[in-house]
């Protein structure tokens, strides 16, 4: 079995990647600008909703209900989808899903596929598998196309090319689309992408989509998007394959009522997505005549088994937590070394794959709580980050220097006497470093603080000492 999340296993530590990214002023400028625009739009349209908190609660409850009865709803979906003319495949892990999909494309003798809105396919490295089999995948979501043509990696769940600005996108298009001239006006960039993609929509016989929701009792699949390219993919080709993580199931159409209100508002700050495509199996002489669903586990049942972290699977991939996260906004998505960036990535990636490769991710947070506040399905991300940190420590994988420091701190804080002695020792130890009550340089690992920040020196009289003296003097 090979459960993996994109290239995450080979990704550098978060701290290492972040160090070079915070030094990249262009990326920081792009990310800051884009997230500020989306946040402002989100705040406006969320503010309009008097029942926003109730909608969040409903979304959470629906997802928790589904996760508790996932076995039932998955089989219900399979039955309904099959009855409507679709074929359901079950994939335990990334390799199994890739071989199923490659097999389906080969059966059509197709050499090309068009793709839309499937981050899950990046999770399982589907494009690599397709190319190895001699099949060329074309991304059709505009941002995914920019990432693909730029030989880049996605940096955001909803806006994968968020780290790029217009000038950079123009350059990528000029380099890859054989264009004579192109301005960096959004209309012109969109028009260039349209010409490039239209021809593929009409020519390529197989499409691969992801899914935002899969409706159990009807076997329907729902994709929401802004451009209409998804609509082309799910309606024009002869064969459609939808790759769906098993947590995407919802019980009924009625449950969409909640998510189709919260998802667009949270994701792009729109009241409704411009394109909401929902289809059920196969309709004779209308749309794809062959429809396959690949239901993917790839570590999800492992997440399900951990009661304290299970609600990670509630995620509807809106990306609001990324835009709200002060860490993400400094580094951009590439620091997370995973297709899933930001706070949700910091809890999802280490759970989906083995912790050893991504154990720095749960620490990529100041626990400020902004992610939890905006999450439309109320995933308590800070709580899960702390839980995963606990797992890192329990596995014995914390850095030795941290273990020593925590042990020493435990000893000092064990009793007021220890604390008192530590204070007295500290006053002596700080002498070479303290000037005018300020410490500006500390040795060893502590320069991580003092490299850019001063530290107040311990005062000659502590609060406790002052308090005891005062009690004595006032005779109380």
């Amino acid at each position: 079995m090979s459960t993996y999340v994109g290239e995450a296993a080979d990704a550098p530590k978060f701290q290492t990647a972040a160090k070079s990214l915070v030094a990249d002023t262009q990326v920081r400028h792009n990310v800051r600008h884009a997230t500020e625009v989306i946040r402002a739009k989100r705040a406006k349209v969320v503010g309009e909703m008097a029942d926003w908190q109730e909608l969040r609660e409903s979304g959470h409850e629906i997802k928790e209900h589904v996760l508790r009865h996932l076995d039932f709803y998955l089989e219900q979906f399979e039955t309904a989808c099959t009855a409507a003319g679709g074929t359901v495949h079950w994939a335990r892990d990334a390799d199994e899903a890739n071989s199923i999909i490659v097999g389906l494309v080969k059966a059509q003798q197709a050499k090309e596929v068009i793709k839309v809105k499937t981050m899950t396919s990046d999770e399982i490295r589907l494009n690599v598998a397709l190319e190895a089999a001699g099949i060329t995948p074309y991304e059709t979501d505009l941002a995914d196309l920019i990432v693909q043509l730029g030989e880049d990696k996605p940096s955001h769940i909803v806006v994968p090319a968020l780290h790029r600005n217009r000038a950079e996108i123009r350059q990528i298009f000029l380099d890859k689309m054989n264009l004579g001239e192109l301005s960096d006006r959004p209309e012109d960039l969109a028009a260039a992408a349209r010409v490039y993609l239209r021809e593929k929509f009409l020519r390529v016989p197989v499409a691969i989509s992801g899914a935002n929701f899969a409706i159990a009792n009807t076997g329907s699949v729902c994709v929401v998007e802004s451009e209409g390219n998804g609509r082309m993919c799910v309606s024009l080709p002869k064969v459609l394959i939808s790759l769906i993580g098993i947590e995407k199931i919802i019980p009924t159409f009625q449950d969409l009522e909640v998510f189709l209100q919260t998802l667009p508002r949270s994701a792009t700050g729109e009241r409704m997505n411009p394109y909401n495509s929902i289809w059920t199996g196969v309709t004779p002489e209308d749309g794809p005549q062959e429809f396959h669903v690949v239901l993917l586990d790839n570590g999800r049942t492992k997440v399900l088994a951990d009661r304290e972290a299970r609600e990670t699977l509630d995620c509807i991939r809106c990306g609001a937590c990324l835009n709200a996260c002060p860490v993400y906004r400094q580094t951009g998505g590439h620091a997370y070394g995973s297709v899933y960036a930001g706070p949700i990535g910091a809890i999802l990636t280490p759970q989906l794959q083995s912790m050893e490769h991504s154990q720095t991710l749960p620490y990529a947070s100041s626990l400020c709580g902004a992610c939890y506040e905006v999450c439309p399905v109320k995933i308590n991300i800070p709580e899960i980050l702390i839980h995963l940190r606990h797992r890192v420590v329990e596995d014995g994988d914390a850095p030795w220097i941290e273990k020593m420091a925590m042990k020493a701190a435990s000893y000092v804080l064990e009793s007021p006497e220890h604390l008192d002695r530590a204070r007295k020792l500290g006053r002596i130890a700080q002498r070479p470093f303290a000037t005018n009550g300020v410490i500006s340089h500390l040795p060893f690992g502590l320069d991580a603080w003092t490299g850019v920040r001063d530290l107040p020196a311990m005062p000659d009289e502590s609060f406790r000492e002052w308090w005891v003296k005062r009690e004595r003097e006032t005779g109380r």
Partner: protein
Amino acid sequence: MLEKLGHTVEFRPAQTCCGQMHYNTGYHPAALPMMEHFVEVFRGAEAICIPSSSCVAMIRDHYPKMADKSGDAALRRAVKNMLPRIYEFTELLVDKLGVTDVGAFFPHAVALHPSCHSLRSLHLGDRPAKLLNGVRGLTLVDLPEAEECCGFGGTFAVKNADVSVAMLSDKIRCILNSGAEVCAAVDNSCLMHIGGALSRQRAGVRVLHLAEILASRDSRGMSA
């Protein structure tokens, strides 16, 4: 300040730490005895005033769960009994004592940094601002992007120093743009972080805990 308002203040010297640093970094078994010690030390107190919202958040958000997990029924009861008597400093003043004017005098321009836990865990709302508005001579200035984290985050500040500092420089830029002479908060940890950068940069702005401002009087010990 509390004594001037007519209250008896007791400092129990046996207290040490709520265990937040260990807990948030993942050292849960090490945090448990600290919680037990905390519960023991403050047993019987009428109101427990904590001038740090992140410690209050640790107690409210995590103590019940830690007690549950410990399997110790007596501890669970003790935590449950203690929780309603826990007050963050401004909660004590505004909610329990019904005071927003403590008779302070502080003739300076102050920016309030609403720390993450005070904002998103305790939901302190306008309590700290109400208290500052009650101070004679004080000008409360607008802090741009006030609700953004300063980048402290406990061990995060050292484990992810580069990102922490990037967040901190945004906060410092906003504080300097606000025109404040003093940056105030209800969390000393954030203030140590923000103050560390202001001091290093010789920025000419200092940090004070809200309590220090509320305890300020003019030279005759009277409010203006």
